[in-house]
């Protein structure tokens, strides 16, 4: 009985929105970034995306059937997980690896906790860090933008990590996504375009993305160069998975804090961790790790930023 009672702060209004509807709207909001990815990296990227979504749905259905629960693959959550995982993979990722990542995301990232709404960590990111730790070779081979053949190129962040300079790439190229990178993270314009509608409808709140990106910017501006206050903050904001992560992964309802204050703490935490890993860590990019670490801290953040009961 206990699990049927939902305890939350008032007001208890119903907006007439269902989880399923919101899920599919967020899914649609993600489509432009994927389309841009296919244009930039070629049709191989499309296969990775479709394969990832297919395997996420299949894993969800298989596990739910095997444990004799209702099969809920149409609620959109598994599809989003598959889509987001694909967006975090390089366009040339081998398909068996995509399948393994998709299965891991759904099985270990979500179903082990009891399914939708109960997972602690963002399932797509769980899948991604699993792949990153298991097969780093395939996870760090990126293809060159607009070349459509097997030419590989390093991401700007990887170049920065290796040689200390980001290579000559203009902000404009970064903004349009003309750079090596994961499928869904490259084209900033498409990401922002997609995020506009759910932001406007308040399906995703602005607190996390704003504080996350701002914190990363400020932190890299202060510590990003040999002297203080000389870092190329614009570069750090526009590269890597920051925009994708901040708008679409850090804002996941289930795995981020409930209150506004909590969300701000969450965003700042993500921003600092991302910047620290990028500047001093062994990996060029830290977005997935930062969000996962803050996912782990979410229950504690919720606990300490809980709205006070009126009158106490």
């Amino acid at each position: 009985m206990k699990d049927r009672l939902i305890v939350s702060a008032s007001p208890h209004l119903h907006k007439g929105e269902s989880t399923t509807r919101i899920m599919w709207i967020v899914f649609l909001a993600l489509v432009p970034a994927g389309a841009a990815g296919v244009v930039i990296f070629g049709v191989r990227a499309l296969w990775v995306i479709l394969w990832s979504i297919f395997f996420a749905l299949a894993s969800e259905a298989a596990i739910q059937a095997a444990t004799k629960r209702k099969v809920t693959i149409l609620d959109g959550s598994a599809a989003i997980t598959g889509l987001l995982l694909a967006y975090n993979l390089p366009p040339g990722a081998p398909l068996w690896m995509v399948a393994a990542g998709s299965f891991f995301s759904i099985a270990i990232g979500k179903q082990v906790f009891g399914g939708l709404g109960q997972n602690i960590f963002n399932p797509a990111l769980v899948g991604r860090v699993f792949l990153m730790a298991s097969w780093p070779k395939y996870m760090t081979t990126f293809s060159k933008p607009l070349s459509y053949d097997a030419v590989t190129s390093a991401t700007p962040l990887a170049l920065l990590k290796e040689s200390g300079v980001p290579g000559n790439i203009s902000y404009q190229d970064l903004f349009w996504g003309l750079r090596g990178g994961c499928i869904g993270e490259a084209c900033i314009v498409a990401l922002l375009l997609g995020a506009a509608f759910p932001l406007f409808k308040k399906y995703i709140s602005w607190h996390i993305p704003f504080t996350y990106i701002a914190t990363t910017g400020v932190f890299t501006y202060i510590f990003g160069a040999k002297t203080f206050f000389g870092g190329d903050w614009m570069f750090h904001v526009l590269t890597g998975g920051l925009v994708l992560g901040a708008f679409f992964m850090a804002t996941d309802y289930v795995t981020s804090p409930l209150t506004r204050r909590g969300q701000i703490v969450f965003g700042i935490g993500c921003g600092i961790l991302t910047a620290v890993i990028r500047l001093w860590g062994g990996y060029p990019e830290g977005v997935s790790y930062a969000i996962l670490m803050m996912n782990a801290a979410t229950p504690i953040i919720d606990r300490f930023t809980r709205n006070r009961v009126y009158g106490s």
Partner: protein
Amino acid sequence: MKKFFHEFLKGIFRENPTFVLALGLCPTLAVSTSLTNGLGMGVAATFVLLGSNVIISGMRNIIPGRIRIPCYIVVIATFVTLVEMTMKAYSPALDRALGIYVPLIVVNCIVLGRAEAYACKSSVTNSFFDGLGMGVGFTLALLLISGIREVSGAGTILGREIIKGFDPVRVISMPSGALLVIGLLLAFFNLIKRKK
């Protein structure tokens, strides 16, 4: 004879220290990256268990109740030191691979747990078979986990490659893989228990 056999078997199945009692997990997870390491740790722990169980049960009427825990620790630590010195002398490679987890057998809950729960109130022969059973149970559990981890995490068995061109799931041989494997195995044993 049947009774001894019973004492021996219970450590392997019904009261398996790792999967049923969930004791002594630190070394289990830390050294189970390869079968060789798992076997080395298993044998070392079995030796300590056997020795401490026999000595403690032999001295059970002499040890005063109030300071029994420190006494047990001295006995156990003596055997651990023996193992440490033997290993350093005859198998330095294994000693390096197991690292600090050899001295840590002292605080392995299985060893102290058997002393406190069994050896201090049972006869020497019973304690011997209890220690042997628990030790073998622990070793088998270690072999199971390290087997799984070596095959999937490194793609080898006892250091030999199994299938050419197989890209091993490297994460399994990392610490987080150890936690994952033990979590899934515990769930698997739960499932079997519930089916029964």
